[in-house]
């Protein structure tokens, strides 16, 4: 009889050891169904971190350790060197050389792990390289795609690659992030979906009061990425539309582009020529 009681006490202690209410529910069900082995998927799930420009991306390693220890995910930091902002803005030839690396690495990973699920978290320039890689390799199948600080065009046609990932793509947007707008306005081939969202059927935009790199920490990963990657559960952002409204000047600064600057310089030159001739 004492053994029975201790079993119930031990079950309750195991359930109580989970502080998160959701994890507690899962633990309870798991133990009542006969143990954790009955509840977790045993399929290997690889999580690729793809970084942005002008960084060696320490966040990849910082996030990898707790994720490896606490989940069944196998994190893999994928790097392609530190891309200087000037190289980032130039259309040629640097983008292609970085694309070759990401294309090769992701396709190798798929080939080496044919039965595993592969999900990708891509940040900034990494979102651009990921989209190009998917367009170039129709056989590359991914599970989840999470973008943050995305520099893809908001009109990017996800239907072109719709069979290569589970819809929807998650797009985490930082409302204090001007970089996607700057990338769009001061170069070619980039967009501002990381500042304003895609607003398309195959994507879910989540808005956060964060800057360009504000997503790259364990707190954000734990609260918003892991529920998706582990359970396919989309946790909505708590930021409402009103609180993410930008001021007039913030909006205008984000609109200011190479075209505007060229126009101002041209008009200034015209004025200077006119004034010197009179």
């Amino acid at each position, binding site marked *: 009889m004492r053994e029975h009681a201790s079993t*119930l006490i031990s079950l309750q202690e195991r359930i109580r050891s989970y502080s998160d209410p959701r994890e507690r529910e899962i633990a309870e069900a798991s133990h009542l169904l006969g143990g954790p082995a009955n509840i977790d998927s045993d399929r290997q799930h690889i999580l690729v971190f793809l970084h942005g420009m002008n960084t060696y991306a320490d966040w990849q390693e910082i996030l990898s350790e707790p994720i490896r220890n606490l989940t069944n995910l196998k994190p893999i930091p994928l790097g392609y060197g530190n891309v200087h902002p000037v190289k980032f803005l130039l259309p040629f030839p640097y983008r292609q050389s970085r694309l070759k690396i990401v294309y090769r690495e992701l396709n190798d990973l798929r080939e080496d792990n044919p039965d595993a699920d592969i999900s990708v978290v891509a940040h900034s320039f990494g979102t651009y390289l990921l989209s190009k890689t998917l367009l170039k390799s129709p056989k590359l199948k991914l599970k989840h795609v999470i973008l943050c600080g995305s520099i893809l065009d908001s009109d990017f046609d996800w239907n072109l690659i719709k069979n290569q990932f589970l819809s929807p793509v998650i797009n985490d947007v930082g409302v204090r992030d001007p970089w996607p707008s700057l990338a769009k306005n001061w170069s070619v081939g980039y967009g501002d979906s990381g500042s304003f969202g895609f607003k398309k059927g195959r994507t879910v935009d989540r808005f956060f009061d964060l800057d360009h790199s504000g997503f790259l920490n364990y707190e954000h990963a734990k609260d918003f990425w892991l529920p998706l990657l582990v359970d396919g559960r989309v946790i909505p952002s708590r930021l409402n539309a009103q609180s993410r409204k930008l001021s007039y000047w913030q909006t205008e600064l984000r609109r200011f582009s190479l075209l505007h600057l060229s126009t101002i310089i041209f008009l200034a030159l015209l004025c200077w020529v006119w004034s010197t001739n009179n």
Partner: protein
Amino acid sequence: MNMCSTKFDSLIAEFPYEADAVSRLANLVDVEKSTHIREYTPARMYHLIQPSNFRVLIQMLTSATELGLLKKVVRVMSPTSKLAGIAEFDSALEIPLTLFDVRTGLDVEVTTDQIRLIYQILPDRECSHA
């Protein structure tokens, strides 16, 4: 719009990759099918709903419970008759070490193999009248 369908829409928004499984759950929950309480074990739910895995199933059922679409019950069965419950709780954490079994008239010490996790579909749920 039917409040039930609104709740299932929010469930699909939460589990967009399990939309088919959520649809199957919606069919199961359809109140037109029955006027009495229907009960399912998680294993039966897994068979009927066919989500990606058991962990996802429990997440979905927990959300459906929070939305009022289902009711979760942790039932302690009688040690003398495995088909008869002697008490019900919201969580296994609430189960006392001993319970009075009306069938035998005795206090029984609760063992983990007497505990069942059940999900109920109630006919008078909020969404059924919206």
